[in-house]
């Protein structure tokens, strides 16, 4: 029996175990939407295609599966670009299906034509234009494989309308054979042995863990290694959740808004063990001042990450989970596990730093944003899925919410996309209907995808939005305060909707707190509501995020509160 391209597409998705996708219809994808009408696959209809991609991204980050979205050609497709670039920068596996004009019109400036393969080439791991229905299932199979293997990333498939109508007999390949794509998973044994030796010799080691810990599922190995040799761990923004937040060996985040102790430990260490992190400029500050007295080990699945920003002593290309497992095996076999005495002084020094320079704020009669995050942490027991927008809200969320588990913190690290958090929270709630999902938002960012309130209502997704409302594009204002003589050019946002009334307009719950003692009751009420809720926390307007390493400075030169 012959099937149409549209039918084949949905069959492939089912065979890949996809149950929920995110999307928005249009002329070029009418045939696919027609098939969706009575398909077991559920499509979550967003209100803007950017949100479809962020939602698929939130779904992917929380589940570890490939997130899938489907949009029409032209404007529908171009609206996805920010979402795709966001996922690409953070190595999130996504499959984006875009409609395209019929093959014979491609290149003619046809109605709603956009060269999506061209536009997304630099922000996808790979992309395809399907010109022949006979190659469709093979390309979909490959796309899933490419998206989730190696260093994960988004893959786009552009689907001309006529190809979706064409008929062919359907087979789904059971294997992918790509002669030109073979990620390296097993680390080099000799290098791992050297790594073990260095670990045992070092007196002041620090682990710098990134998003690779989460994508490879290496957090239990990381915990084992850290505890086995009493090595303190700092994470990048992307690594948050990869090592338990409340753990005594956790130094918190490093870098521009890292903790004092994390940045000092990096600066003072004699061995830096970099695991699935990429020495991003927000982590390292001025490169010359980064881990200046230290040997550096770097484990990463992506060879291009190695020696890109920092020259390292022991590079290991491989899956960080497999490498750590092998390392642990070596260390266990050699019974060299009790190394506590060596690092005692080091750990004492670190707890000293924690005592003298903890993360801190002081609150009087106005609500401090840090306090809101702290209370959300306490009242959810650290068990919620938290997404963030971008700016100060994002940094306070990463500083004051202690994440216990991987895949519970969703934030746009690499691209820094305002408007990411809310749709990502929707995707997470679709994946985990029974979990508490909270978007810690800024008043500016939330307005970038606020239209998705309708999506949350339509699908009964009880996402909670906690707006840290400072009336400013706060993070930009902070830079203007510190580096542009307080000339607050276009960062004051005192015109905004009344968020409580807005909630009402969408038929959901809106709550406001203006005084510190109203914070807890508002969170309480929000958490007990079965509906989506907007919490509008009217916070101190000119609060800053500290510590802060000014751009271009070494990370031990922090501005403190």
């Amino acid at each position: 029996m012959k099937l149409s391209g549209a039918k084949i597409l949905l069959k492939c998705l089912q065979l890949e175990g996809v149950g929920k996708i995110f999307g928005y219809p249009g002329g070029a994808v009418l045939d696919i939407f027609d098939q969706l009408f009575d398909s077991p696959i559920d499509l979550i209809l967003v209100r803007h295609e950017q949100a479809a991609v962020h939602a698929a991204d939130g779904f992917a980050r929380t589940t570890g599966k490939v997130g899938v979205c489907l949009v029409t050609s032209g404007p529908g497709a171009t609206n996805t670009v920010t979402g795709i670039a966001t996922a690409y920068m953070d190595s999130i596996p996504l499959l984006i299906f875009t409609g395209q004009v019929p093959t014979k019109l491609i290149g003619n400036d046809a109605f709603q034509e956009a060269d999506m393969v061209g536009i997304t080439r630099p922000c996808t791991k790979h992309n395809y234009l399907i010109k022949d229905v006979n190659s469709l299932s093979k390309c979909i199979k490959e796309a899933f494989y490419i998206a989730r293997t190696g260093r994960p990333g988004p893959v786009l498939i552009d689907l001309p309308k006529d190809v979706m109508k064409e008929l062919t007999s359907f087979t789904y390949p059971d294997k992918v054979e790509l002669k030109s794509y073979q990620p390296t998973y097993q680390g080099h044994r000799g290098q791992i042995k050297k790594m073990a030796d260095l670990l045992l010799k070092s007196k002041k080691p620090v682990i710098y863990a990134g998003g690779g810990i989460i994508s490879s599922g290496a957090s239990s190995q990381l915990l084992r290694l850290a505890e086995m040799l009493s090595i303190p761990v700092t994470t990048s923004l992307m690594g948050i959740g990869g090592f338990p937040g409340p753990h005594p060996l956790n130094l918190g985040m490093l870098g521009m808004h890292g903790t004092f102790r994390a940045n000092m430990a990096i600066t003072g260490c004699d061995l830096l063990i970099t695991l699935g992190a990429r020495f991003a400029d927000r982590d390292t500050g001025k490169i010359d001042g980064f881990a200046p007295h230290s040997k550096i080990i770097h484990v990463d699945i992506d060879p291009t990450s190695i020696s890109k920003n920092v020259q390292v002593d022991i590079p290991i290309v491989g899956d960080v989970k497999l490498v750590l497992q092998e390392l642990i095996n070596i260390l266990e076999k050699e019974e060299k596990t009790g190394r506590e005495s060596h690092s005692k002084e080091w750990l004492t020094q670190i707890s000293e730093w924690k005592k003298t320079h903890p993360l801190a704020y002081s609150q009087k009669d106005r609500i401090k944003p840090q306090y809101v995050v702290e209370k959300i942490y306490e009242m959810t027991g650290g068990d919620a899925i938290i997404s963030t927008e971008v700016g100060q809200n994002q940094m306070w969320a990463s500083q004051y919410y202690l994440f216990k588990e991987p895949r519970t913190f969703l934030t746009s690290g690499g691209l820094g996309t305002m408007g990411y958090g809310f749709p990502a929270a929707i995707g997470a709630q679709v994946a985990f209907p029974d979990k508490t999902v909270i978007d810690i938002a800024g008043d500016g960012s939330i307005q970038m995808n606020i239209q998705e309130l309708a999506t949350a209502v339509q699908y009964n997704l009880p996402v909670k939005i906690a707006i840290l409302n400072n009336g400013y594009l706060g993070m930009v204002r902070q830079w203007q305060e510190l580096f542009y003589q307080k000339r607050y050019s276009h960062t004051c946002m005192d015109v905004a909707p009344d968020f409580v009334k807005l909630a009402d307009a969408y038929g959901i719950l809106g709550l406001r707190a203006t005084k510190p003692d109203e914070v807890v009751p508002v969170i309480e009420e929000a958490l007990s509501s079965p509906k989506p809720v907007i919490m509008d926390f009217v916070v101190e307007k000119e609060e800053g995020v500290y510590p802060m390493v000014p751009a271009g400075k070494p990370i031990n030169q922090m501005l403190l509160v």
Partner: protein
Amino acid sequence: MRHVISVLVENEPGVLSRVSGLFSGRGFNIESLTVAETIDPTASRMTIVTRGDDQILEQISKQLNKLINVIKVNDLTGKSFVNREMVLIKVAAEDATRAEVLRIVDIFRGKVVDVSPKSYTIEITGDEGKLEAIIDLLKPLRIIDLVRTGQVAIPRGKKDLQYVKNHDKNI
């Protein structure tokens, strides 16, 4: 330093733009790039001449390898290889200079491939030094136009271009 990189890619639409986009997007420079089908029609060979320090060259190779359609990357620099480039030069040939042009072409074992009353078009193949030398000699006689192919390169001896496996494996 200058490097000659040979890249085996899948012979598919869009591959050239993936490669050139990589170079422009990451600020790597391309001095020349040639591409054509290999003996296996499903694959094409690119020869890219680029410049950069060791770290940049390492990134170029790794980033090329990372492209899904790239099968093999082989930096030939420092290895034994043969490289050639061809140039077509249209040079003014007035009565007074016609003989001189022909003499130079002869010395360089070039060929005259087109003649007009006022010009010769000549074809020269060789390594870069040879091409530069003849261009310098012809310049005073007035070069009207010239077109170069960019370099192609192949290792010496029995080795084929595929002998370097994804060289970045475990560095």
